């Protein structure tokens, strides 16, 4: 099964995502430039971390209007899998593929640290390899990870099991300790922690392996 990693000007976790997918998830991983208007035949689209367009406007706001986004929306509408990590999550909210918004961290500082997460829903294509209520460690590295949404949206996310990852020790002020959510259909996921940085014991944590293995299972 195949995956595409979208490259915006200012993406900087695209290589890390490609390596993680290649090693743990997909047979073929394409890098797709944001100016393309069509995706290659893929099962999974990943919007990687970074600072697309420098995040000089709202994080992800300009990337969400890139030419490639229309075909990503079409892919999602067809039920194809879409993942946004960090800046990718911000892009997905700006593109309205996911509800809510990522605001500046409550402490107003960029934060790079390990985050303890609870996997809230293991019935998704992204989390099946984790045990229910499993705790896992995946690092965060962001300035704008404070998830916000109105009360109705938050209630719906809770009721429909759309909250996938929750912080055990909320680092950024996110509503309901949200670290990652899916859309209602469950095929689009956004998360602030970086699973692609947590797959190798040499570099530290391995809490992201479950994520890539879940995807590998979903793709076969």
């Amino acid at each position, binding site marked *: 099964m195949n995956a595409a990693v979208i490259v915006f*000007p200012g993406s*900087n976790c695209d290589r890390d995502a490609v390596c*993680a997918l290649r090693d743990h998830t997909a047979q073929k991983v394409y890098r797709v430039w944001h100016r393309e208007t069509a995706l290659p035949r893929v099962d999974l689209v990943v919007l990687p971390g*970074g600072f697309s*367009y420098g995040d000089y406007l709202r994080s992800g706001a300009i990337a969400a209007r890139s030419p490639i986004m229309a075909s990503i929306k079409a892919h999602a509408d067809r039920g194809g899998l879409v993942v946004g990590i960090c800046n990718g999550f911000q892009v997905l909210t700006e593109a309205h593929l996911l509800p809510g918004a990522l605001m500046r961290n409550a402490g107003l500082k960029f*934060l*790079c*640290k390990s985050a303890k997460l609870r996997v809230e829903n293991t019935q998704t294509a992204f989390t099946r390899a984790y045990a229910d209520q499993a705790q896992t460690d995946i690092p965060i590295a962001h*300035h704008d990870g404070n998830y916000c949404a109105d009360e109705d949206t938050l209630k719906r996310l809770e009721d429909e099991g759309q909250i996938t990852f929750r912080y055990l020790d909320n680092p950024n002020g996110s509503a309901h300790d949200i670290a990652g959510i899916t859309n209602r259909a469950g095929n689009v996921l956004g998360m602030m922690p970086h699973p692609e*940085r947590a797959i190798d014991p040499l570099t530290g944590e391995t809490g992201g392996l479950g994520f890539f293995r879940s995807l590998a299972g979903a793709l076969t």
Partner: protein
Amino acid sequence: MSMAKATDFEQARALGLNESEWQVILDRLGRRPNETELGIFSVMWSEHCSYKSSRRHLRKLPTTGECVICGPGENAGVIDIGGGLACIFKMESHNHPSYIEPYQGAATGVGGIMRDVFTMGARPVALLNALRFGSPDHPKTRTLVSGVVAGIGGYGNCVGVPTVGGETNFHAGYNGNILVNAMCVGIAKKDSIFYSAAKGAGNPVLYVGAKTGRDGIHGATMASAEFDDQTEAKRPTVQVGDPFTEKRLIEACLELMQTSCIVAIQDMGAAGLTSSSVEMADKGGVGIDLNLDHVPQRETHMTPVEMMLSESQERMLIVLRQGKESIAEEIFKRWELDVALIGKTTDTGRMVLHHKGHTVCDIPIGPLGDDAPNYDRPWQAPAPLKKIDAQDVPNRDPAQALLILMHSPDMASKRWIWEQYDRHVMADTIKASGGAADAAVVRVHGTDKALAISSDCTPRYVTADPFEGGKQAVVECWRNIIATGAKPMAVTDCLNFGNPERPDIMGQFVRAIDGMAEACTVLNFPVVSGNVSLYNETAGSAIPPTPAIGGVGLMDDVTRAMGFGAAKAGDALVLLGQSAGWLGASLYLREIECREDGAPPPVNLAQERRIGLFVLDGITAGQFTAVHDLSDGGLACAAADLALASRCGLNILASKTLPNAGWFFGEDQGRYLLAVSANQLPGVLTQAQAAGVDAAHIGTIQGTDITLGNTSLGLDLLRRSYESWLPDMMEDA
């Protein structure tokens, strides 16, 4: 010839040139320069660009070695790391701008040093920074710390290069002049390294990157003068950084480098378009003809001299092979960067600039480099300080002293700082700040190798004795690299001193270099790049002399990377090296006794080398569970680091011969603390003896307390104290 008016000496003096320098210009031109020409001479001959006070002394440093591909003189140093790969690295200061405008000053320091590295064909893979702030109580310190840290993070995080290490000191000596030194390390293919010599006439000169504005004009000149009470007025000379453009510039340049289009490439750093074009032409033995009307400009009505001296960031100058213009233009346009052909190389040996139909500069390039001033400034060696006998220092409870030291500005955890840096992007960071290792360790992507990187200096030693302090900065860096299991390869330096026109300051500079040269020679640790930052003074008060050393080491098997966070209960603690209880210029003396006197610990280079190689062999053979070098705070602070990181207590016996202060807190050099499992212990002690290395079994990993002689301290209390100092200072005050 030029339509512009000729200048006079008063104008030259205002730009920092002295009478003899002015005379040389008149002599070489056979006339008085116009404003543009004078501006070019003044920046090229500034201390910052010409190294006029330091050049003759820098020659003493060893710059060659088996691994050296390119030493000083290019944008950065290049060493061979095997497997067809090269490591390219350099450290540079951005002190004055960071004091005036901390966020942008620090951010553009990071941007500038990255450009020096990718200019040569390397992808930047690691950033470090060496920061020295004023006293924590000084009213400006908190603002400067938060601005500098946010600036470093804001730039590096956005570009996507991990900030993996560094050092932070606080001392009143930096109250009026902080130091912000940034180091960048990159990886390139050994057969694809790019240099700045623009050989061959008739080649097109391409300008790429951000547009030119009026920011940073005379930045190089500012960096070559003391501060006074007018510093606020210099804010406009600080450049503004744009990491998003830098990121695109990296990708576009690395892409262009895979084609065969480039003759020479240089970033526009200090003195912007002037130094980049002059240096490329000078090294290539050619002339250069530029039409300033084609320079992309951010502001209107810019004059030629403004364009030539602007230090707007994120700009590169590239000399292409003829006929390759469209390939280059396509790449830069795809990355949405400005790109413009602004001229060509010539065979005249002159720099000729055109602007709005006039020739505004026509000068020979040779004299800009060849005739640059080269001063032998008078210097005076500092008087040696008295040795302090540990017996004369009052007797105190060592556990309580440790608690105070670990909560002191220089020792306390810098988590508040490094949590603001992305340390893991690129997914090859093995050890970074907070990672319980003496140096950062970064895997070479796609291989089993790793680089160990450390930046070091102990300014209080250099202040007390520049020669021993210069040596110590080098050996501490060497030791930190060894302690991770890497072979030390080469260093870069960033020499921060006061006003070289004062003989006492020049004496610090000369003697520190003498010490560095001796240490680098004996340890076979050549200097491949560097930067000199002089005039670090405010209102006549100089900073403590601070020659920061940035070292790079290589390990073949990254799975062997060593740290001090994996000691296990039951492990023996082994101290390598000799302990004489040296308290002169120590952290203990400063923090506990409020004294900053005494001669610093001497460095025995032969012994240092012998012990280091013994440690490296032991790590390679897998004989140790933890390794930590001894530095600030001596044995007790090293033990505390190890205990905190390994999350277990330990017990160290008192010395039979030395008083507690000297034994637990003395800063004798050439020492390491090892944790060794019980079954490895006899072998390690025997091998040490055979190698002529002093090794003593001084304690054990056990329990949940740190016990020093007959005093104890709970690990939890120590951790709270260690972690709380900086957040309390930054957030609760």
